[in-house]
């Protein structure tokens, strides 16, 4: 394993930050539950790839970023967008194809983008944003603005050549980009062991890139590791590759219900009941005296109100005027 070994303890994280982790994770969970509901009630067109189960990664990484840092996201991207500061109102509006959405209804669930929060865009080509993230990091270095770029991708992207071309360029030119591999174990409907030869982090180590593998269900651990490598990149020491082990509670997309042919129910149950990032962090907050159950419930209640209002806003919002179809093709 190359690079520094970060083992800053969670006690170094302030109380407000610890509570914010919880709030952000619950926000994503509640958002995605409403996406599931909208989709199954046929109010949401297209496809819905839920991030439920993986919340600690987006939150742990994005909480370690500055607002002007960059992220690129994936088809399973709602969590990244929210964690980077997206508004649930504009997110839901986009998911429903409404004019008020982040992309005026032209992008949808898989293409949320927002310059205001440094979100270069979710990408529906697996591995497709590796170049964009690396290029943004290149621009940061050239323009000397100190920004770091995060490239989120699932372990399914490990089969795409572009990822390795970008890792080579990133390390060759010491670019401030962090490749964050969210390893949820499944490339769509196929276990990653059936698609992935050799070592995951060994791929990056071959380029001389610093790597780390950690528990993606522990938000404090994700944050601590991400912070270390983000600051390392910001100081000019180059990229890192972080693999976080996680699990996708739902199917590949909302319609993927009969999953027994590719993964056992017992496995799903084990992650949901034993390794849920929201539950684990809530229990940690209570057992370490950071918050009691009532405080956590209050956080959740406020978020439920906010998310329900966001859904209401989106449902009531108008669709784009037909005249918009030929706008924004060219700048």
């Amino acid at each position, binding site marked *: 394993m190359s690079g520094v070994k970060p083992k800053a303890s969670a006690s170094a994280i302030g109380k407000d930050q610890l509570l914010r982790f919880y709030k952000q994770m619950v926000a994503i969970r509640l958002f995605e539950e409403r996406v599931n509901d909208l989709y199954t009630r046929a109010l949401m067109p297209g496809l819905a790839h839920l991030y439920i189960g993986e919340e600690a990664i987006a939150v742990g990484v994005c909480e370690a970023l500055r607002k002007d840092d*960059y992220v*690129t996201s994936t088809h399973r991207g709602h969590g990244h967008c929210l964690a980077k500061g997206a508004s649930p109102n504009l997110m839901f509006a986009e998911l429903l194809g409404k004019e008020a*959405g*982040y*992309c*005026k*209804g*032209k*992008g949808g669930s898989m*293409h949320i*983008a*927002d*310059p205001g929060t440094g979100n*270069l*865009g979710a*990408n529906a*080509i697996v591995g*497709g*944003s*590796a*170049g*964009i*993230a*690396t*290029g*943004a*990091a*290149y*621009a*940061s270095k*050239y*323009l000397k603005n100190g*920004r770091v*770029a995060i490239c989120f991708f699932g372990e399914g992207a490990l089969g795409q*050549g*572009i990822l390795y*071309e*970008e890792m*080579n*360029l990133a390390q*060759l030119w010491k670019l401030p980009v962090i490749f964050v591999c969210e390893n949820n174990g499944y490339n769509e409907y196929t276990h990653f062991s059936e698609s992935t030869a050799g070592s995951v982090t060994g791929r990056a180590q071959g380029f001389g890139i610093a790597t780390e593998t950690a528990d993606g269900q522990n938000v404090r651990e994700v944050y601590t590791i991400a912070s270390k490598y983000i600051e390392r990149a910001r100081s000019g020491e180059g990229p890192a590759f972080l693999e976080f082990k996680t699990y996708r509670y739902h199917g590949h997309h909302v319609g993927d219900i009969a999953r027994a042919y590719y993964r056992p129910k017992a496995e799903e149950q084990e992650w949901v009941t034993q390794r849920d990032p929201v539950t684990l962090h809530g229990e940690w907050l209570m057992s370490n005296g950071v918050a009691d159950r009532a405080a956590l419930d209050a956080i959740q209640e406020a978020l439920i109100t906010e998310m329900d209002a966001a859904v209401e806003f989106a449902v009531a919002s108008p669709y784009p005027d037909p005249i918009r179809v030929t*706008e*924004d*093709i*060219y*700048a």
Partner: protein
Amino acid sequence: MAQTATAVRELTFGDAIKEAIAEEMRRDSRVVLMGEDVAEAGTTFKVLTGLVEEFGTTRVIDTPISEAGFTGLGVGAAMAGMRPIIDIMFGDFMTIIMDQLVNQAAKIHYMSGGHWKVPMVVRCTMGATRRSAAQHSQSLHAWPSHVPGLKVIVPSTPYDAKGLFKAAVRDDNPVVIFEHKISYRKVKGPVPDDDYIIPLGVADVKREGTDITLIALSSMVQVALGAAKMLEEVGISAEVVDPRTTWPLDEKTLIESAKKTSRCIVIDEGYGRYGVTGELASVVQEGAFYYLDAPVRRLGAMHVPIPFSPSLEDMTVPTESQVFDVARELCNK
């Protein structure tokens, strides 16, 4: 030394392109150029010789042989405030960068509801008869022309190449420029040394005529002009129109010319089938149908992989005598 007036020199096609890049790099520090062997080597065609000496290796950047990688990097750099020029040695390598160009660069502005921009130039080459065989000789400019969100330049003269290239660098959209590699040294012409730009989407009438319109792009403009000279000797007055960009496309100038002459041939070095000639012929047909005295004809590259052997390769590209023959047939002369 301060210039007091615009000097017009004879430049080669290649030197005009280098001058455009150098001027834009002097004007805007966000403009960088990256590609394989672009720095000390000055590209494999030696078109950029001397550029790295002026701008250094932080702005004229040698990349690994990794076209998709550095094109993708260019997309992100453009989104994050740079104006990169991505050098793709051969247009045949368009295949390698297609996802970055088509699914990323072309769509980001639209998909983001107009919030992100990709001000990037991809420069690459086209053209056969260099004995480079099937993977280094194609003219694939129809491909990006097919995709909404991209702009495509296909210049034929040094003057046009400089003015259009400078416009591309200043454009807020991804622009692909196809440079005809045989033209780099072979084609010379007058080029002002000042800061002029040619807007994308404006055709140029290279020769006025009254009997037939020859619409030609890139290398085929010289072929059309040669054919026009031959036609003049048999009493046919040919007008040569160069669209200069396949998108945006100056449909009006093409249609007006065809309306005036009532006959039209479209000549291009790309493949004829499902290609640029088909599109332009269709534009003329739809726009000038009731003025036409004959069907619009097309001459494109022969529908074969470009062969190596000179005797075979030369057969695949439209020639002056082919244009001459088709024009005489259309004019009944």
